[in-house]
C-alpha cells in the first residue's frame, strides 16, 4: 500500500509523517515512531494492552486504522507523565503495587486516564466498567482498582 502524509497531534507534539494508512495504529506507533510503550496482546480488541486515548476516548489501537489518525489528538503511555492525571495515576500504580509483569499496565493506565479525564471522582463501579476491556493475568485486578480509586482521591485533594 502506498504511503500518504498523515498529520496528527501525539503526546502534545505535532507530527507530519509519511505512512501506510492501512496499517494498524498500534503498528504505526510502535514500528514507525518507535513508541513501544503501547503493547500488542490479542490483536482483536479483547485484552486492552494496546489502549491509547484518541480524541479524549480510550480505544484499542489494534483496531484503529492508521489513516484514522489524520487530524486526531492522541495520547499514549509515553505522554502520560506530562499530564496531571497521568502523573498521579502512575504514582498511585507504583505506590499500590498495581504492576506486576507490566505488560497490561500501559493499557490500564490509558483506560484509567480516559475515565478520570471525563469523571475525576468515579465510583468503584465506574472504575470497574472503565477497565472492563483490559485484561491482567498477574494482579487479580484489586490493586489496579485500588490505585485508580486512590488517583481519583488525590485528584480531589488537589482540587481537580
Amino acid at each position, binding site marked *: 500500500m502506498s504511503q500518504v502524509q498523515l498529520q496528527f497531534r501525539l503526546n502534545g507534539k505535532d507530527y507530519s509523517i509519511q505512512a501506510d494508512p*492501512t496499517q494498524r495504529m498500534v503498528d504505526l506507533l510502535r514500528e514507525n515512531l518507535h513508541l513501544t510503550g503501547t503493547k500488542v496482546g490479542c490483536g482483536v480488541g479483547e485484552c*486492552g494492552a494496546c489502549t491509547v486515548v484518541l480524541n479524549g476516548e480510550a480505544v484499542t489501537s489494534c483496531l484503529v486504522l492508521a489513516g484514522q489518525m489524520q487530524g486526531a489528538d492522541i495520547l499514549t503511555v509515553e505522554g502520560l507523565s506530562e499530564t496531571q492525571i497521568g502523573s498521579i495515576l502512575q504514582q498511585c500504580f507504583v505506590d499500590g503495587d498495581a504492576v506486576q509483569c507490566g505488560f497490561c499496565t500501559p493499557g490500564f493506565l490509558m*483506560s484509567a486516564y480516559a475515565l478520570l479525564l471525563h469523571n475525576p471522582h468515579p465510583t468503584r463501579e465506574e472504575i470497574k466498567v472503565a477497565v*472492563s476491556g483490559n485484561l491482567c493475568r498477574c494482579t487479580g485486578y484489586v490493586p489496579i482498582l485500588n490505585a485508580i480509586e486512590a488517583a481519583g482521591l488525590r485528584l480531589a485533594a488537589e482540587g481537580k
Partner: protein
Amino acid sequence: MQVRTYIRPASLADALHTLATVEEPIAIIAGGTDVLVYAREDDRYANSALIDIYGLAGELGQIREERDDLIIGALATHAAIAKSPLVLRYAPILADACRSIAAPQVRNHATIAGNIANASPAADSLGALAVLRAKVGVQSPEGQRELAMDQIIARPYRNNLGPRDLITYIRIPKLEGYQHMFYKLGRRRAQSISRMTLAALLKRDSQGVVEDFRITVGATFPRPMVFPDVDAMLIGIRPAQADLEAVAKALSNKIPEIAGIRASTAYKQPVCEKLCLRILNNLLGGDQQ
C-alpha cells in the same frame, strides 16, 4: 491490512461519488473493529478499494429528532448512543443494548451502522433495534431507501446491501411511557459474545391493560426477528401469570420452529423460556415508568 487502494472521502457527497465510480471491489470501513479482525484472518481485502468513511462523523454521526422519529447517524458510536439524552429519553432500550457491547474501547470507536452491516447474529444492538421497529436508511448511486431490521440482514454475516450501498442513518419511532428490558446472557459482562439476548418493550394504561408489547430474542436466529403473534398475546389484556407463562412458552418455541433443532436448542429453548418469564415478571411487577 492488504488492500488495492485506500480512499478517505472528504464528505458524504464525495463518498457517494466514490461508491458510484470506483472500479475495484468495494470494502467500506467505519470504526473498523470488525474489518481489522477479518483482515488478520486472510487477505480478503487485497483486491479491494477500502473506503474509510470514519472521517465523516460530522455529517453521519449526529443523533437528532425529526418530528416523531429519532434519527441516529450511521457513524454514531455505541458509546455516544449509550449516553445520548435523546436515546435515553425515547429509546432507552437501545442505550442499554449499546452499553452491553464489548468494552469501552470498542464502544468508543465502533459504530451502529457497522454493527448492522457486519450482520453478526450475536450483535447486541440488533434485538433492540428490532423491537424498536427501526428502519435503516441506505443511500446508493441509484437513490435512497429504508429497510426494516428483518430486511437488511440476510443470514449470519451477510447483509442484503449491494456493494455501492451506504448506510447513512437509523430511523427509530420515538416511544414514550414504555417500560423496557434488555437482557444479555454471556459468560461475563464485558467482552463476551452473547449466547442470547432478550429485548422487550411494554406499555400499559392506568388500569394495567397492555396497550403495546414487543419482544424478541437475539443471538439465536440467523437474522433479527419480530414476532407479532407473540406480541399480540398480551395486548388488550391485564396479564395474569398464566398469560406470561404462555408468552414465554410461545417465544421459546420459536427457536426450534425457526432455527431448527440444533445442538444448542436443548440449552437455548428452556433458557429462553425462563429468561422471558423473568423479564415479564420484572416489567409487570415494576412501576409503569
